């Protein structure tokens, strides 16, 4: 039951769980292992079965030239983007992103979040991301959930979130205490189809 749902669920990890000795092309193609027939998955270990698809996914993250690079030759930010490319290639209906741009510089982070949001909108998918960067959340997402000490502080449309709310969210929090939990969860519900699990 759960196994049939999993291919429809895309996870973006803060630290991309990619084997260092795997090439970016294989790491991206692994996103569809849950959808491909077994023979195709096995054949892909010998020769990449969808070079064009992997190339396109990486190209959207400006990594087309890294198609055949090994993951341990990539920088932390590039690795994180390969992880995102894998989820783009997987084409899930729900994307759960845990700090998806933590290793990227601000400009690249903005670009990447915009890409994820555009992807979700275009494919009518749901995107939920946890973010530390307040401006990224406010700038791109339609719905903001504020988390404080493990509890939901507020859950509002982005237009209703104002400076006073944010001030209250961060008030009395030492940076260290805020660390383990991302203070924001930003969501964009592009379709009526809600996440099913």
């Amino acid at each position: 039951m759960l196994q049939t749902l999993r291919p429809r669920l895309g996870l973006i990890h803060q630290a991309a769980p990619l084997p260092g000795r795997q090439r970016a092309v294989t790491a991206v193609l692994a996103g569809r292992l849950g959808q491909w027939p077994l023979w195709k998955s096995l054949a892909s270990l010998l020769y990449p079965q969808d070079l064009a698809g992997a190339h396109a996914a990486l190209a959207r993250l400006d990594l087309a030239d890294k198609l055949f690079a090994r993951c341990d030759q990539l920088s932390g930010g590039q690795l994180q983007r390969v992880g995102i490319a894998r989820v783009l290639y997987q084409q899930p209906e729900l994307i759960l992103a845990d700090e998806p741009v933590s290793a990227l510089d601000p400009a690249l982070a903005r670009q990447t979040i915009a890409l994820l949001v555009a992807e979700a909108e275009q494919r009518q998918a749901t995107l939920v991301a946890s973010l530390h960067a307040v401006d990224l959340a406010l700038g791109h997402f339609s719905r903001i959930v504020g988390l404080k000490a493990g509890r939901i502080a507020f859950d509002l449309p982005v237009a209703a979130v104002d400076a006073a709310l944010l001030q209250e969210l961060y008030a009395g929090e030492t940076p260290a205490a805020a660390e383990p939990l991302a203070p924001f969860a930003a969501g964009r519900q592009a379709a009526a189809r809600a996440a099913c699990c």
Partner: protein
Amino acid sequence: MTAVALRDPAARSRCWGVLTALVVLWPLFQAAEVKPGAIFDAANLKVIGHFLGGFLPPERSPEFLALLARATLETLAIATAGLALAFVLAVPLAYAASAAGRERPSLSPFSRGLLVLLRGIPELVWALLFVRIFGLGPTAGVLALGLTYGGMLGKVYGEILESLPAAPLRALRLAGASRPLALLYGALPLAAKELGSYTVYRWECAIRASVVMGFVGAGGLGQLMDQAMKMLNGGEAASILATFAVLALVADALSAWLRRSLDRPPAARAWALGGRSLGLLLALPLAIAASFRLLEIELSGLLTVEAAQSVGQFAADFLHPDLDPEWLRRVARGAGETLAISVVGTLLAAVAGLLLALPQAHRMPAVLARSRPGRWRGRLPLLLPSILPNLLRSVPELVWATLTALAVGLGPFAGALALALHTAGVLGRLYAEALANTPPSAAQALRLAGAGGPLPFLYGTLPEALPQLVAYTLYRWEMNIRMAAVLGFVGAGGLGQLLYVELSLFHHAQASTVIVAMLLLSLAVDLGSARLRRWLG
């Protein structure tokens, strides 16, 4: 986006790699006379079935058990005395050969060459030679172990010392300390644990090695097994095999305990040695003395004029190898067969080892989670996958060869199968450890994305663990080429068979050629394996 024609740049080299492997492996499989059908041949099945049927019940008569106990003690004593000899040999050689603590690196060709020679010749060949000189009995076994393991210990000791940070040693030398003192103060504290742990590991190996010495008449359990096999006495063979397994497990546990105690931090006291260390230091010479006593080896007896003369005579014979082209051709064919046995045996073992390791690696966390005391019944099925590799590797290759020779007939295929059975146990355990040490996150992420069956392992775990698995396999191959060279002693083809026949006929010049070929072959495999490792890494 421009429509580029995409092609995997690695495809061509992969294709060539597979083709080369096929071209290289095909003749090797031919030379090893791989014929899986022989395993299921009706006549062979009948022989092995009859023999295995005789395993039950194992022989338990009091006379036999007394014999077995005596042989077990003898095996332990051979290992202990042999390792003591090896240690005495290794320390000065390592000191002379190692570059550690020297003002400028020296090549020390003499000590290094001696180390290569000592460990290049398998202990079983040394044993065979010494049996010719000193007659049947454990003396030959102890000397053989002493020389081979002396070479191994000397090399590894030297390398451990060289791998230490050079700064503390240099500082001591600059302050005026002599090289031995600088090593004692600047290297030993850092290396003591590794040196100790390697020595204990070698002792464990020595027990396994001394088990098989008996096959060439050097006493111990092997001799007993040889007799039982020759008479096709299944009951006795079963009892001896069970003793092997227990001995191997006990040695394993003891060596693990000794190595763990090396990990304990020292207490705060002026004396460097605590009660436990003092006890060990006292027990060690006692154990060594008791071993020599039990084996009735008089070291002084080895230093007589007669012994020196017969060794000299023997060595003189060996300095004139037979270089007749016809004989060289036969030796070359034997070398090819030995190489084929080692490659085929190692490859089969790698496949079997992976199959053995997979269930273990999967269940490792489950076993740990459930390891509450008093829950043996629940843990047993989980532990089963790790028991099989332990059983496989507790039986030495040479003993397996006597069994596989029954199953598929004499010849190289029996040797390859014997190597595969023992090595599968070793690799199964090493692979399982390597897989368990691979971070699980990549495979877990794939499982969460819906990948099922073997896919999370193939895409997530294997790429990370592969270099380690390949390194272990190549390392075992280097050991197996030496083993394959001696499997012929029990009729499994290759160089060993040639050597055994020629030595029985007192053809020393021909035997010398074979030994030189063994040395060259093992050196070539070492080089080839190092090159493969670099190429794959």
